[in-house]
């Protein structure tokens, strides 16, 4: 039984249909990536899974429960965290408040422990805890966004373009973090334009074009596929 299973998902904005029947699954413990060019429907797919965009058709099952009609906060409560494109940091809340927002649905006594873990994963955040989120650099904001998502103890983490706008060194750091998060037991659905990096860390990958999945397979397999190399890896 996959952790997340998406079947025939159709969604869009106003008169535009951005995704036209997406099928994908994510198994427990996997890193699955969805690659594709700008406007292919990657972000809309994530936004529909997490409930921000209403599905017009199709099904989304998470932990074997249909969730395509649930409000976003109820999906969060089931154990899904979505780090949106642009990171979604609250600029006027402090770094510490941002981190606490990540644990909003939790009422257990281990929130402080998890805060300690996130801070040791991202030591740069420690000295900035009292600063407003908007004062952080792009890289720090991305760390905060991922750290904040960890505060929810998600069973499934949706990451939308975590490498966007970051220097190559920071991109490396972020991808190392993604792998270490997986080693701690989280499952990740990663959307990326940086296909080379994404295929390197992913167990499996889907290629999306104009709102439909055109290819899927193991990460390494797709990285060797001629049309993927031409279209997304800048080769040939």
């Amino acid at each position, binding site marked *: 039984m996959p952790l997340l299973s998406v079947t025939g998902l159709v969604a869009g904005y106003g008169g535009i249909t951005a995704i036209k029947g997406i099928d994908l699954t994510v198994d427990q413990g996997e890193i699955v990536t969805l690659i594709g060019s700008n406007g292919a429907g990657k972000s809309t797919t994530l936004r529909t899974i997490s409930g921000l965009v209403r599905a017009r058709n199709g099904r989304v099952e998470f932990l074997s429960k249909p969730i395509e009609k649930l*409000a976003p*906060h109820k999906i969060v409560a089931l154990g899904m*965290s*979505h780090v*949106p494109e642009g990171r979604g940091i*609250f*600029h006027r809340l402090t770094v510490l408040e941002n981190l*606490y927002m990540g644990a*909003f649905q939790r009422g257990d006594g281990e929130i402080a422990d998890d805060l300690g873990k996130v801070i040791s994963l991202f030591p740069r955040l420690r000295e900035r805890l009292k600063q407003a989120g908007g004062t952080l650099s792009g890289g720090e904001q991305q760390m905060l966004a991922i750290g904040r998502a960890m505060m929810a103890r998600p069973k499934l983490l949706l990451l939308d373009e975590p490498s966007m706008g970051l220097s190559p060194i920071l991109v490396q750091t972020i991808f190392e973090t993604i792998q270490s998060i997986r080693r701690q037991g989280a499952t990740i659905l990663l959307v990326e334009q940086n296909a080379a990096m994404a295929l390197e860390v992913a167990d499996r990958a889907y290629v999306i074009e104009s709102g439909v999945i055109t290819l899927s397979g193991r990460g390494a397999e797709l990285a060797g596929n001629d049309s993927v190399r031409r279209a997304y890896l800048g080769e040939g």
Partner: protein
Amino acid sequence: MSILFLTTPEFWFDQIVNGLTTGSIYALVALGYTMVYGVLQLINFAHGEVFMIGAFAGYGVLLALGGQDISGVMIVVALVLALIAAGLASGATAIAIERLAYRPLRNAPRLAPLISAIGVSVFLSHLVDDGFLNGETKHYDQIFPAGKLSLGALNVSYLQLFLMGASLAMMAVLYWIIQRTKLGRSIRAVAESRDNAALMGVDVNRAIVATFALGAIMAGFAGVLYGLFFSSIRGSMGFIPGIKAFTAAVLGGIGSIPGAVVGGYFLGLAETVGRELLNEIPGVNLPNEWKDVVAFALLVLVLIFRPTGIFTQQEGKRA
């Protein structure tokens, strides 16, 4: 400068105390405008009527407890009960308004909820005036002990002291809720981005309802304080204080909570002290109604020259 001394220091202290008294009421009401604007970018023009409902709820409680005959320790009990009833009545009214008049228009063009707000405002003031009171004005019983505190040229009545102190305490509690509680954090998060707050697990509708309710409770308290101080209450009583409080919120930078408080006191002072200062000019003698002219002239000037508020730094648009 010498013209200032044509009148006595006592006179000017009185003006300042009066300004701070009405300013307290404006500040309490302004909080509701600014908070709702913060989360929905909506000017809740029915907020003045939410204030009016609070004034009547408090009036009803005082009447039921014996009106003029309330004395001794019962005065404290009666005031507390009146404030609680006003907070509940105003809060419930605001929650109903949000649910019935604003939420169905959440995704409509901005003008639609604004018109809906004006409609609710007119409806409520006429419902009370024409539906229940036949145009009659009610009067708060003067249960508060008369007398004043005098410090040299400074005279403050006990009622004014209570009014200023109670307002400060209420605003401090609200500030604590917004800054230090999980609910407050969720309201601030929704004010920044509804989508991002939802992704954190915040029930956005619940946070919006809480925002309306908190602002309305402050307005309900203000309604009772208004009744105690000015005595006369009627269905249309919320209109002018409502627009004044809106002015205060704009002065302080709408969306800013400290701004609403500072704007409230500033407006209270400007309209009392400001009018008297104009009266110091030889040949000028402005009657009391000119308070409103001063207040609304300020609103127009601020909207033209500093639409983000006079106390805020002009902020560039952030990406």
